[in-house]
């Protein structure tokens, strides 16, 4: 099953790795394809800002887009091809957006747009307090995923966010399905404990 963040023209992780390497070697066609694929940044930033109710103004979103490109350049050589390019880029978009929101001190505010405007932004309108709570839980999950060992985070991402079967994940990595289940269990236990601690004590790390 392809990543939910890829699109029709997206390749697999390994194919994307070859694309990035070719672009870094100076292959003009590969560079053009890479830049075309990075067009997803605009869509991700625009929609994340809406879906998560950040209310970042246009100039703030422009700053985020620029920041994502700037952050990508020194990290392109680190692209491993374990994920599709779009999935990798999505992480940058999310982190840069969150940083910009924090920088502008908007993160603590409850969305205050009138209901009809919120309805336009988000087709399934949800009350501002629910939106804020949902956003905080999603940010907490993202934070905890980033703290996990790489193998465990990958197992959770593939199984519980992208919906791949344990057996398929295991086959692709040459390990037993029980190994992937163990990784997921360990990772989710950590996430559960930390989410509970955050909920109870407001702990940040």
């Amino acid at each position, binding site marked *: 099953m392809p990543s*939910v*963040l890829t*699109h029709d023209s997206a390749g697999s992780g390994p194919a994307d790795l070859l694309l990035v*390497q070719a*672009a*870094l*070697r*100076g292959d003009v066609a590969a*560079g053009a394809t890479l*830049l075309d694929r*990075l*067009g997803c*940044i*605009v*869509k*991700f*930033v*625009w*929609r*994340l800002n809406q*879906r*998560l109710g950040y209310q970042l103004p*246009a100039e703030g*979103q*422009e700053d985020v*887009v*620029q920041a*994502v*490109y*700037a952050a*990508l*350049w*020194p990290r392109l*050589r680190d692209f491993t091809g374990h994920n599709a390019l779009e999935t990798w880029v*999505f992480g940058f978009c999310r982190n840069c957006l969150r940083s910009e929101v924090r920088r502008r001190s908007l993160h603590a505010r409850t969305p205050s747009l009138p209901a009809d405007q919120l309805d336009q932004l988000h087709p399934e309108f949800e009350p501002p307090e629910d939106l804020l709570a*949902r956003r905080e*839980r*999603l940010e*907490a*999950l*993202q934070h905890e995923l980033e703290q996990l060992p790489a193998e465990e985070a990958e197992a959770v991402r593939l*199984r*519980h*966010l992208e*919906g791949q079967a344990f057996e398929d994940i295991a086959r692709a990595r040459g390990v037993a399905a029980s190994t992937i*289940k163990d990784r*997921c*269990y360990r990772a*989710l*236990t950590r*996430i*559960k404990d930390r*989410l*509970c601690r955050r909920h109870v004590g407001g702990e940040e790390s």
Partner: protein
Amino acid sequence: MSDVTFLRLLQARAIDELTPGEREQLDLLAAADPRRGAALAEWDVVHEVLADERALRQSLQPPVEPIEEAAQGFVRLQAAAARAGERLRSQMVAATLPRVVAAAPARRSWWLAAAALLVALSCWWLVGRGAAPALDPNVPQDRRAGGNLQLVLLEPVLTASARTIRWAPVAGAHGYGVVVVDADGNVVLSRDVTLQKSTAWELTPEQFASLRAQVRLALRVSALDGAGIAIGSSGDLALSLR
């Protein structure tokens, strides 16, 4: 029913592997004991958050809609992305192209002074340290990228009967990009990329003849890593043809 059954089912819930029947059984066990109920509720929260995250990612998936493209804010973002993309393109090109553009005439003297200073510092470094600098394999490649490397040219003088340029292998290099430049720094000949791994370059008689017409020539070798990315450059090494 025992705690063992509850724990087994709870573990299955943890990785979202319960059948509907098992879920019913788990709910019954949890309802009978508040501690069990709390433990199950914690896992339910984790999976609610994961489901939210999946929904968020799914909502980002569809292609851009006309109403989004028409939004002024979206247009501004596209413009910002185009500018940033151009910068990224320039950075990629600058990182891979050999430095073939001569300094502007007005600044050439400044560049010459800087180059002379660099040569003087290199000599001081060589004499002072008593050892030839080399690529440090312990230093990450990105830290080495673009650095100078000490290249030993084995046959700096070429003749019509000995037209092969050779150099000593560089530690850490998987290949070499090689060009010959004229006195102004313009590339007059570059090695075929299919020969990238070799530390020798045999010129054809025609190539040799074309180079012989030049007054001053220099060889410029870039060491490349396994991905073909430059990890250091030799600068311009004098090359003589007789």
